[in-house]
């Protein structure tokens, strides 16, 4: 077992780290305040290949693996979690299912757009009445000649406001239960497709989160992703993959919080000494660092398992996502605590990390759902 990253991976990590510190960090607080979608960040990152890390080179991507993607997302999320999730969604929730389940025409049409960020991707799974219960959503798609008539509303869609390429899940045959679910690629400008208001969220405020609304939307027949009835499988597999990235995002936020806490602890004095000399502070830093290391290894492990081509890795990716998100919550809480009153003030970045962290435990499957996935996997002997 080799715990070392390859030289390539180290170079990637190094490059993204520098980029994040020099280009993303200076604007992170501002975009959180204004909630504007960080197009300037996106454009710069697209030039470096970060929006299409796992997209094959022939389609304009970097043709790299999921471990590399995890490294990219972690480094970005250390300074700007909003930008981190935009990259994660574009790569693993949109480009990946198109790559894995789409046909040659769909690859040629959509992957280059996503890789170069000429269009941003979004995935529409969640609905107002279907959060954890993915299969309970109500959107429908009826085949009528050369197009599907799509009806329904998707909610809390990351990148929604700016998305040009959306993967939307709808029932083509409700009578078949979850085997009657299908996936579609819906482009902006599709007649009948509109977007809701920008959601005002506690954290990850600059991701253009909104509803996707379909009212007799005309989606061309060719935009069916995979086959009719394959939607649930596509959704579940895609979530298995994207959980690795959300785990990486959580590790990034946690590491950013730890770095800030260490820096502050070294500078701040109380009772005649640096607060870093107090065991309470040392205890917090030690806990944070250990948990982050464990979370990172779980994320890397899940990524490596996926990269090796192991067909089922739900357990690994759920473990990574669950543990990393809990670690992240604990880390941001302690980081604010180390900063004392200053951590409660918007003058310090940890205040933003604190607000950004909470959703890690909720989206892409709540922690409770992750535990169910892990337990089921164990009980089935996988």
């Amino acid at each position: 077992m080799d715990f070392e990253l390859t030289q390539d991976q180290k170079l990637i990590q190094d490059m993204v780290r520098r980029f994040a510190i020099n280009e993303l960090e200076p604007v992170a607080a501002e975009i959180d305040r204004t909630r504007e979608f960080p197009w300037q960040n996106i454009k710069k990152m697209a030039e470096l290949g970060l929006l299409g890390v796992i997209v094959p080179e022939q389609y304009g991507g970097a043709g790299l693996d999921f471990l590399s993607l995890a490294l990219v997302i972690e480094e970005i999320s250390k300074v700007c979690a909003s930008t981190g999730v935009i990259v994660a969604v574009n790569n693993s929730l949109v480009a990946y299912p198109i790559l894995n389940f789409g046909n040659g025409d769909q690859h040629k049409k959509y992957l280059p757009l996503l890789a170069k960020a000429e269009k941003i991707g979004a995935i529409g799974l969640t609905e107002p009445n279907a959060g954890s219960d993915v299969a309970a959503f109500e959107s429908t798609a009826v085949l009528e000649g050369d197009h599907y008539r799509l009806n329904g509303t998707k909610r809390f869609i990351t990148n929604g406001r700016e998305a040009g390429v959306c993967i939307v899940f709808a029932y083509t045959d409700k009578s078949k239960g979850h085997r009657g679910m299908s996936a579609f690629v819906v482009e902006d400008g599709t007649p009948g497709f509109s977007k809701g208001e920008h959601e005002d969220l506690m954290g990850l405020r600059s991701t253009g989160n909104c509803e996707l609304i379909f009212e007799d939307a005309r989606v061309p027949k060719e935009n069916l992703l995979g086959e009719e009835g394959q939607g649930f499988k596509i959704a579940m597999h895609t979530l298995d993959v994207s959980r690795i990235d959300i785990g990486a995002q959580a590790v990034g936020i946690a590491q950013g919080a730890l770095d800030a806490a260490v820096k502050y602890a070294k500078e701040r004095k109380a009772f005649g000494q640096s607060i870093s000399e107090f065991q309470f502070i040392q205890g917090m830093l030690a806990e944070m660092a250990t948990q982050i290391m464990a979370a990172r290894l779980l994320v890397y492990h899940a990524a490596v398992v996926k990269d090796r081509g192991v067909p089922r890795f739900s357990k690994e990716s759920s473990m990574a996502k669950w543990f990393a998100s809990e670690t992240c919550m604990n880390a941001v809480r302690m980081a604010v605590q180390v900063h004392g009153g200053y951590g409660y003030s918007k003058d310090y970045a940890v205040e933003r990390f604190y607000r950004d962290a909470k959703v890690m435990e909720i989206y892409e499957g709540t922690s409770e759902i992750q535990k169910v996935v892990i337990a089921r996997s164990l009980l089935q002997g996988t």
Partner: protein
Amino acid sequence: MVLDTKYQRFRDEVREFATQVVAPKASHIDQTGEFSWDTAKEMGRMGLLGIPFPKKYGGAGLDHLSYAIAVEEISRVCGSTGVTLAAHVSLGCYPIYASGTEKQKRKFLPPLLKGDKIGSFGLTEPNAGSDAGATETTAELAGDEWIINGTKRFITSGAIADTMVITATQDRSKGVHGISAFIVEKGSPGFSPGREEEKLGLRGSITSELVFEDCRIPKENLLGQEYEGFKIFMQTLDGGRISIGAMALGIGQGALDASIEYAQNRVQFGKPLRKFQLIQRMIADMETEISAARHLVYHAAMLKDGGEVVTKEGAMAKLYASEACMRATSAAIQIHGCRGLTNAYPVERFFRDAKLTEIGEGTSEIMRIVIAREILGR
């Protein structure tokens, strides 16, 4: 815990007030950062701004347990209003009541207790947080005036307070034994309220700097004896901890109430959320911990009412209640899912408000040191 019916009646009154007057504005003041003067006036009219003080000074003539209940009930709907209330009573008024001369009490307390004026406590400084004894603000006697120089930071209601009880050192070489306490009124020459903080939570409560540049206050505004400042503020904090414990308790209860309602109504996988064990677990833990917190807070309040020194019990109450509140508010968002992150539900506000209870009026780390010291000695 079985309380006398008079407390239950009092709770009902405050709860009614909180629901009718405070709750409707809670989300708005959090979003805009506005201070609600209307609410402050209403609280004054209800006698909430002077609960544990004698009627002869304009107080309600009730006890600390009643006060704790009031803070709890207000915080249950609005943490910002809760902290404003707690800071006003425990930090702004209490030191004057406990350490002031009769003349000072008669002068300053009535408008504060009736709610015509807002009180605050200027202890924290940029370089003196947990190490409150590292005060750098100075006070020098010049004829019949004190000249104050320095800056205070993170002062609840600082920018809007009419009366401030502050600490300043007369002799830095004496360390904590050089500190004295003073009463400063808004409008004193050389005083200005400084920058307002933009905060993670409790955004409807004003937090700001206090800036003293050759600020002149009358000689009679010395609170207690010279060099007694450290003792006064430690005593103030002991009582203040109970109120922050009550605030944490209230926020936690609010989070629990919202969670119960949501779990009853939200259906997923064909069943209401309340049927799922992992949801049940969260609710059960919240209920148990908040109940335990309530016992600790009320116990400390009752001890104080009995005239006991509550250094340890106050710290325990605040420590436990704040940590229970943190867990409860996090679980509340979890139960609400993504909706819990929008301002359509109060839980994200409770979550942000909760964090301060682990920090303000002594961090949890300081609480642990205080408790350990009481048990182990120095």
